[in-house]
Structure formats: structure tokens, C-alpha cells
């Protein structure tokens, strides 16, 4: 990845973390090295999570007093996506699965967009792959590609495959560009069927995502790179 593209991707992630929907508002960040921006983003992530850690932990303890239906109702009607995401990391995985089953996909997509997958890895791993795919499709629909990029390295093969099924070619290019764990991009492209890999270049040209395509190609091994370039 070129230094400029790496900085652009990091700037987009930082903008999302700070709740700036328009990444252009932080365009000045693209002049900083990506490593600096990534370190800073990780520090800000820790700051935000650590600041809310005590109440999230107590909310997790309080949730143990309640049945899953009550937790789901409270999450949906009272907590909002941000605190629901923090709470999700505090629940036992089995409880979290029962709560998630009682929430609709649209709300789960909002919660997932606020979730740090590193802190809810056990819960994510316990969810049915089909549900993960449905949530991914909804997140793409509401434009949460940067948030989705955080999940790439935390999903198992079945969940990742279910997500790919729900995402458009344009979504894949946008998510791969900001993905944490770029080493999984090759595997992700290997899972594309029915000529999808070869359609990516045309999609990139049509959607103005040439930089995203160049970055994708930079992270592919020879075999997958050839599959994508077959459509160039």
C-alpha cells in the first residue's frame, strides 16, 4: 500500500471513531504517516473504552439479575447502540446470543458499528454465521464500511463467507481498504465465486474506487491477484 493510501485509510478510521461522518472534515490527517495515526487511534480507542469501562462492567453485573428478554428490551429501548455495544462485551457469550436473538438486524447493525470486536471476540464467535452475514449486509446499507473493517480479522471462515454473500462488490472494495488484519484479504478474495473476483476492476472504475482496488491488489498473493486482474 502506498504511504498516502495507508494514511487515507487511517484517517477514515479515526474520523469514524470520533463520530465524524464526513471523513473529508479530517482530510488534514492524510499528511501524517499512517503509523502515527494508527498509534493515536488505538490510544483514543483505549481512552474511550477505559473511560466507560466501570459503568459497562457494572451494567454487565446488573444484567445477570435479568432474563435475556428484559436485557434485550432495555438494550433496544433505553441503552442505545453505544452502551449496548459496551454491555455486549460484558455478557457471557451464551447470554449474549440469547439477547441478540431478540433484537432486530437493523438495531444489531447500529450496535455492531459501535463495537470494538477485540473486546467482544467470544460473543462474536458464538453468533450464527447467517446472522453475522445479515448484520453485515445492514451495516453496508447504512454506510458503516469503516466499522466493518474492524471485524475482518475477528470473524471465522463461515461468518466471513456469510458476510461476503451479503455484500456488493463495491462494499468489498471499501471494507478491504480499511480492514484490520489485511493478511485475511487474500482468503476473502479466494472465497469469491462465480466470477466476482474478476468483476472487481470494473466495479472500481465504475465507482471511483481505483485506489481501493490498487490497495486490494497489493495485499493479494499471486493466485488471487491473477483472478482479480483477469477482469482488468
Amino acid at each position, binding site marked *: 500500500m502506498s504511504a498516502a493510501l495507508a494514511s487515507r485509510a487511517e484517517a477514515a478510521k479515526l474520523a469514524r*471513531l*470520533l*463520530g*465524524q461522518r464526513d471523513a473529508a472534515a*479530517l482530510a*488534514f*490527517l492524510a*499528511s*501524517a*504517516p499512517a503509523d*502515527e*495515526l494508527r*498509534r*493515536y487511534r488505538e*490510544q*483514543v480507542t483505549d*481512552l*474511550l473504552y*477505559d*473511560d*466507560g469501562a466501570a*459503568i459497562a462492567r*457494572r*451494567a454487565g*453485573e*446488573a444484567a445477570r*439479575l*435479568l432474563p435475556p428478554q*428484559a436485557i434485550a*428490551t*432495555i438494550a433496544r*429501548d*433505553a*441503552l*442505545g447502540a*453505544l*452502551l449496548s455495544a459496551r454491555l455486549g462485551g460484558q455478557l457471557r457469550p451464551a447470554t449474549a446470543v440469547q439477547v441478540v436473538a431478540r433484537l432486530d438486524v437493523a438495531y444489531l447493525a447500529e450496535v455492531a458499528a459501535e463495537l470494538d470486536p477485540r473486546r467482544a471476540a467470544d460473543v462474536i464467535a458464538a453468533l450464527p454465521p447467517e446472522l453475522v452475514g445479515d448484520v453485515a449486509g445492514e451495516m453496508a446499507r447504512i454506510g458503516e464500511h469503516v466499522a466493518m473493517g474492524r471485524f475482518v480479522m475477528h470473524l471465522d471462515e463461515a461468518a466471513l463467507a456469510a458476510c461476503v454473500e451479503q455484500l456488493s462488490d463495491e462494499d468489498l472494495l471499501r471494507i478491504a481498504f480499511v480492514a484490520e488484519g489485511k493478511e485475511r484479504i487474500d482468503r476473502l478474495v479466494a472465497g469469491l465465486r462465480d466470477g466476482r473476483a474478476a468483476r472487481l476492476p470494473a466495479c472500481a472504475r465504475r465507482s471511483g474506487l481505483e485506489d481501493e482496488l490498487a490497495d486490494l491488489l497489493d495485499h493479494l498473493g499471486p493466485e488471487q491477484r491473477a483472478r482479480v486482474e483477469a477482469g482488468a
Partner: protein
Amino acid sequence: MSTRARSGPRLPEPPPSLAAPDAEHLSRLVAAALADQRRQTAEAVERAIDHVPRLLRGPVRKVLGI
């Protein structure tokens, strides 16, 4: 540059290669995100109590420390 939020933890030092005005702008955005998170959390906890079954409100308040 101050790197301390109005109350609470120290804010991270912005990336050193940023110009001073950009670094200050970035720190202000981080402080605003932190304040917004605290406000959302406080409001959410208050709303949540209203949804807890009446019999469990006392124990839940106790666990939450409110």
C-alpha cells in the same frame, strides 16, 4: 497544548507530524467525543432503570452504584 479533558483522563498526544492548529483541532474532537460518550452513558443508565422490572430496581441500582 493542554491534553487534559475538562474532567477526567489525560488525552493522548496528537500525532507529532501534525501542524499545531490541526493537532489542537484533533484534541478538541477527542475531548468532544469523550464528553458525548459520557452524556450518552448517563442518559442511557437513567432510561434503563425505568425499564427494569419494579421488583429488581433496587438490586439493579445497587449494582450500578446509583
